[in-house]
């Protein structure tokens, strides 16, 4: 499967997750967010950027509890909590935010 954006073809898995981490760009993220009915704001970017940095360091997406802990450390408790993350990514940060961040789909029943 794939999608086209600005004349370039991007390979995805059957659910629209990017096949290649390096294909990711802000435009690609905006495009994927659109397919998920998510409108990217500064708050959304903070999470996506964190996920990409974390993945690049550890080659795995963080557990949600680690995401919350790190968000709390970086942006304070009003952003480091479950409710806030689900408000931004209603289908669940584990799936939706990872997808927009260009990470592979977590291989679990998430």
């Amino acid at each position, binding site marked *: 499967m794939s999608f086209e954006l600005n004349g370039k073809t991007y390979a995805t898995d*059957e659910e629209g997750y990017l096949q290649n981490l390096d294909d990711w760009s802000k435009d690609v993220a905006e495009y994927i967010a659109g397919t998920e009915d998510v409108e990217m704001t500064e708050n959304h970017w903070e999470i996506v950027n964190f996920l990409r940095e974390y993945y690049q360091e550890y080659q795995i997406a963080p557990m949600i509890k680690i995401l919350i802990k790190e968000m709390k450390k970086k942006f304070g408790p009003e952003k480091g909590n479950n409710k806030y993350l689900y408000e931004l990514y209603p289908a669940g940060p584990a799936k939706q935010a990872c997808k927009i961040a260009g990470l592979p789909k977590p291989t679990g029943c*998430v």
Partner: protein
Amino acid sequence: METIIQPKDISAKLREILKKADMNACLTCGTCAAGCPSSGIDDMDPRQVYRMLAYGLEEEVIASRWPWVCTGCLRCNRECPMGVNMGPIQKTLKAARARDKVPGSLHKGAVTCAEKGNHIGVPQGDYLWLMEDGAEEMVEEEGLTGIKVPVDKEGANYLMFPNSKEVFGEPDDMKWWWKIFYAAKEDWTIPSENWDSYNWGFFTANDELHKAIVKHQVDNMNKLKAKTMILPDCGGGSLACRMGIHNWFPEALNNWNYVYLYDVLKKYLEEGRIKVDKSRHPQLATYHDSCSHGRKIEMSFGRGYYDEPRWIIDQCCENFVEMHPNKSNSYCCGAGAGMWAGPYKDAAKYHGRRKAESIKNSGAELVIVSCSNCRDMIMKALKPEHNLDIEVKYIWQVVADSLILE
């Protein structure tokens, strides 16, 4: 000119399976097709698939989506008037698919679990931190002084396997069980490694990976000298583990046994080790029978868990109504056999429409479930899709929410 289709030969392996399945007995009556909620997906149905096989169209069926959009609910098998055994046929068709053609990330997850001890690849340090942190939160937020999640405690009564979905994305969902164990003053434990509860080797009909994951579970029981295993969630995980123990590690049962989650909850309630207040659930409640806790184990092990969950719910809920059909005739939610994690979401939702009708017709406001994938399918997929005005809870969540803590 008319084309005459000649039957083709099929592989020796499939021929053996078909012999055992007794396809010659098939009357082509279509009971399987009529009773299967997946009939119609890709213009196929179970009867058509089996007749295609009888005609030698093995490669066509293996290449089709059909084996993978089947939720393995086995209503077809249960209802066939001639006893054609369809489960092993579906398994053989899945197993015949090249592993790099297995849909979605199901194969990758099973390999990850066999190698790293959980499907997602959560590092051990993160996992151990999560358990400690979660228990600390329960002390601070719920005042449950002294609550702990014992890891690798030798000789415990119960060993439980965490579900990597919860560890990764829904950690608070583990706390209901923790709270119940706390209230019952149970001696329980979880393993520090190879801890995952579900089994995508089973979902992908990969005996080697299925066995490797069950071996983790058996090895943990042996190593920690635990007395009883609580068969792991999800429904498919429990069935994969139970079948795997009996197929590959039967001698392990000389040293310990296994129980279902219902056995634990019922025992606590019967023995008065936990006390509950049913006025906490005044709303009309119904129960969804997981195929793997009901029909499927009734067919493979002789007894399904139908009465126990209803008895437990009766202790915790004031009003109960059955949905129809129920128990061994219950419709699958659509998430079975890896469909929740797999890529064919539309097929899962299409299958689940029958369950959604059952729920709607019951008039219940609370749907109680016993499997994490049934829960997610009903709560996150069927509820919005069919505008169901319901709350969905695990049966252990209902018990935990009803607890009277002294």
